[in-house]
């Protein structure tokens, strides 16, 4: 059971990440590429949270309900990190979308194959 959980949970998160990368590598539409980056980020964030989980753990909050009961708590560190990672991912996505807008204005297309004025 444990092994199944391990493989399925990490596998799912990694699958999501690689799905995003697949979109980045295969899709021709700039917007889809940005979405791919976003999806890859989400998969990564899921991985973070999954790594932080401890069997039978509760949320790491000392509310009066749990205080002093000695329950196991999940690891708070990846949760804090994922918060940072999400914000950074958001920032990158926003900049990417702005660039897509600029590129569309200039080239009148969102096909990445047609946007290569700079080469060699």
């Amino acid at each position: 059971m444990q092994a199944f959980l391990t493989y399925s949970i990490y596998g799912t998160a990694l699958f999501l990440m690689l799905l995003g990368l697949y979109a980045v590598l295969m899709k021709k539409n700039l917007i889809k590429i940005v979405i791919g980056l976003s999806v890859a980020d989400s998969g990564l964030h899921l991985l973070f949270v999954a790594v932080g989980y401890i069997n039978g753990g509760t949320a790491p909050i000392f509310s009066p309900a749990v205080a002093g009961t000695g329950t196991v708590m999940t690891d708070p560190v990846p949760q804090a990190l994922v918060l940072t990672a999400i914000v950074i991912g958001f920032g990158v996505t926003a900049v990417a979308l702005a660039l897509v807008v600029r590129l569309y204005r200039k080239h009148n297309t969102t096909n990445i194959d047609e946007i290569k004025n700079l080469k060699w």
Partner: protein
Amino acid sequence: MKNVIIISLLGVTAYYLLSAFVSIPFGEDFINGVKDFYLNKSPEDLKVANVVTSIVVNFRGFDTLGEVTVLFLASTALGSILYRRRSSHTALNPQRTAPQASTLVQAGAKVIFPFTVLLGAYVFIHGHLTPGGGFQGGAIIATGFLLMLISYRKFFVEHNVLTWIEALAGTSFVVIGLAGLVYADNHNFLENFLPAGELNDLLSGGIIGIIYIAVGFKVGAEITGILDTLLTIKEAGLDPEEN
């Protein structure tokens, strides 16, 4: 063909990464991590119930400062990327290309908007007590604004106000951090110099609550600003790329 190549490449990557991740089974605790220290110190020294918050704002507060900077940066970069020189002829005539939303949506949005903002404020004010915090609260507030932006073609945010909020909130974060250099016991950046209070009190955690409120304002203002920049075209018509 390309499909097959890429899928097999990603498959190989997946195989290696998965083999690295499954080395420690899911949900297993490891020893000697820094987390135990955080779990002990957060309620004892900082009197902060939400350990994630105490990590985000205090133990790793420097990261959060960077994070806030990233958001600020994103909005600045966005402004710089989509910036257009104002020609003297065309007056500033902001407009949106999106179609007008239905009356139902408009009315609903009007009702939901204040509550969304209120919820956001609640979330970031109670960041050290309950799940949530400045980023989450700010994001909720921005959602409220997004709702308004997409419902009303004529709803515009005042960028001047946003600038002031961003500047003051960001400044207060850094200033609070710098104050730690002067007033705190060990004279460290971002160190707590206020009384910690009691666990699970609203006024607990010293500077943590204050910083999270500042972060909430800043995030709310910045995301709203970003959404507005992306949604609104400042000038009538699309000018061709200059130069």
